[in-house]
């Protein structure tokens, strides 16, 4: 165990050094991109939403930070733990008070807002370039950390959403493979839905409610071939024919095909309905695999991931990226920590702890990815995955999506009305 830890530590230091060399190689010529660990010093703060809870805190404080201190003995890191649910408030109050953490881990879709407002440091000035990052990451993931042509964030992990089928249930209903089109999705969902004699739902054919309504809609929107915004992110595009078709399908699943009832599952469910058999198919997060390993490993062989196929391939990704504050008093120390957290070894450990998808393509061969079918599936299909966000106002408007989607699912508005009303809100925010 001790030997393994030693090897891991040595490997980590080597990785950090390699990443540093990689950054040095892509220097712009003006910035000093070589960090001399002995010369880097100072006290810096880290705001993180991904190491929350005891296991995450233990990983960061007992394993990762000691490795970092070994490389940078003159740097002290003060960690501020939070969750994604509270990250927005934390960042907002930090900006208002002028106490912006030196290193911040943020979500996909968040970079635009904070980069636009000048909160984040342009990492290009620290020697990171788009081209170099694209050698190690999928292009779309690198772009999630960019704003206005500059790099502001380095990806660490991805959260993907895709279709998942319970093959044992599908086989019982006479299907050998997951659906490969919307028509098949409806057909299989209807065939696998189970209701009791009094009509109450016992098994959903296709579950969309145990996932955030916005993310479920986005996955369906992408499978319809739709986009959230126009190309230059100046206007909403989700109320297009594709968007209406996607939301229409979701509403029909509930109201017409009756393959799921409102309230049958929810985001608060402790056990995902695909694990306990309350759903035959659904849209799920990639960490469903890790959940199933802990809750009921016997079900793992029956969980089959699939890309929801409509006019296009529906797969959605969010994720966590590392950023540096523009006004950091110790930018070199902050940069050192950013490089460390996004280095292969540290990123792999963080991904493993959360059951997430490493952003670095080189980690596709790691034992963790090879042993996790969902993560492997996600990494193999990243080329079709799309992200949310786009305009710098994304954080302002993303909260309006769920009520709009829910309104359509509940039949309060038609999909077209719900999306048009939402588009009007979004356009007002963009124009503001």
């Amino acid at each position, binding site marked *: 165990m001790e030997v393994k830890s030693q090897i891991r530590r040595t490997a980590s230091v080597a990785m950090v050094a390699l990443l540093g060399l990689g950054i040095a190689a892509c220097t712009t010529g003006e910035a000093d991109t070589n960090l001399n660990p002995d010369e880097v010093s100072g006290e810096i703060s880290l705001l993180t939403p991904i190491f929350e809870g005891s296991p995450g805190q233990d990983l960061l404080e007992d394993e990762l930070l000691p490795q970092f201190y070994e490389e940078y003995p003159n740097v002290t890191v003060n960690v501020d733990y939070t969750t994604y649910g509270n990250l927005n408030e934390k960042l907002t109050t930090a900006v208002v008070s002028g106490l912006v953490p030196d290193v911040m881990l943020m979500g996909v879709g968040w970079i635009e807002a904070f980069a636009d407002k000048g909160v984040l440091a342009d990492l290009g000035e620290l020697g990171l370039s788009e081209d170099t990052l694209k050698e190690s990451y999928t292009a779309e993931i690198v772009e999630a950390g960019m704003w206005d042509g500059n790099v502001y964030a380095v990806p660490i992990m991805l959260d993907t959403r895709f279709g998942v089928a319970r093959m044992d249930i599908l086989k019982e209903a006479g299907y050998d493979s997951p659906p490969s089109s919307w028509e098949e999705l409806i057909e299989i969902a209807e065939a696998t839905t189970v209701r009791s004699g009094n009509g109450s739902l016992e098994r959903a054919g296709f579950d969309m409610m145990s996932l955030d309504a916005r993310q479920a809609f986005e996955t369906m929107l992408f499978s319809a071939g739709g986009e959230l915004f126009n190309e230059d992110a100046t206007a909403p595009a989700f109320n297009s024919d594709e968007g209406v078709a996607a939301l229409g399908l979701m509403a029909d699943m509930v109201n017409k095909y009756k393959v799921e009832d*409102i309230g049958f599952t929810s985001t608060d469910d402790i056990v995902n309905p695909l694990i306990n058999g309350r759903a035959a198919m659904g849209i799920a997060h990639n960490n469903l695999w890790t959940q199933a390993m802990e809750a009921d490993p016997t079900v793992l062989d029956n969980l089959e991931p699939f890309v929801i196929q409509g006019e296009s391939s529906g797969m959605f990704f969010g994720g966590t990226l590392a950023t540096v504050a523009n006004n950091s008093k110790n930018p070199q120390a902050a940069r050192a920590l950013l490089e460390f957290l996004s280095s292969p070894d540290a990123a792999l450990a963080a991904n493993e702890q959360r059951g997430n998808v490493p952003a670095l393509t080189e980690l596709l061969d790691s034992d963790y990815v090879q042993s996790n079918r969902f993560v492997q599936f996600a990494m193999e299909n990243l080329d079709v995955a799309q992200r949310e966000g786009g305009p710098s106002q994304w954080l302002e408007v993303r909260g309006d999506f769920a009520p709009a989607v829910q309104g359509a699912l509940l039949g309060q508005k038609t999909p077209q009305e719900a999306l048009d009303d939402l588009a009007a809100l979004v356009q007002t925010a963009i124009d503001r």
Partner: protein
Amino acid sequence: MTTTERHPTRGAKAAAKQVSPSTAPKKRKRISTAEKKRRRAGWLMITPSVIHVGLWTLIPVIATFYLSFTDYGIFAAPKWIWFDNYVEMFNDAVFMQSIGNTIWYTFWTVPVSMAVAVVVAVLLNQGLKLQKFYRTAFFLPQVTATVAIAMVWLWIFNPQYGLLNAMLETIGLPGQAWLVDPKWALPAVILVGAWQGIGIKMLIYIAALQNIDESLYEAASLDGASSIRKFFSITVPMLKPATFFVFIISIIGAFQVFDQIYVLTDGGPANATTMMTYEVYRSAFQEFRMGMASAQSVVLFAFLLFVTLISRRVTKEED
């Protein structure tokens, strides 16, 4: 020319002032050293509170009023936009829905929990066995964190495994998707609010009940009054000051409901349970619109002020 000549009226007034004994400067009352010390000690003692109120209440209140007329998105200096925030707010269907929800929530949680609290207080003021246990049990929700309470209610309301649906099933009633069905979400939140508010109201009523002169009940008993008659003719009128106090703090509390909404429903489904405070939070921390959030806070403040003044007026008239 003298001043009096130039301004005859002023001159006459000045002359009158000089001769009138009533307007002559009063002799300053001599304050003893002990009194001075006492006053100084008083000022010294209230200074921390004054500083606290000034720093954390007065300045934020003034800032909120000012910011409500600005477009302030945190990252740039506030821009004065007059009443634009207010106009937008009252044209925003979601905010109007939040006002409706807040009033509806208040309408149900305040009278219901007050009625239950007064009955419980009267029952627990009879010297029953296990009285202390019951008092503690009823007061417990008040001292428990709302978030913890909301987590328990999340389980109670769970459509599949929840206690509430299980109980309904045992008596042959169909279960509901309490927090995800717009029809039931607000009543479910109201139920939690009413339940949680009983404890503090009960405590105030018990304190008030213990101040009622026993001789009133004895005299009523001699006159042959029944328990119900005594309750409505003696207890209820004597509890009037406490009722007014409970009413005001309950309304303020109900208008400020936030944490249970945050945990239970997040304002959903489809904005069915969003409240004014939740919209303030959403504007400030999700949309970064501090100016709008300030305007919404001012409207919330105006609502509370209006309700308080009306309540005071009604009570005063009744007195």
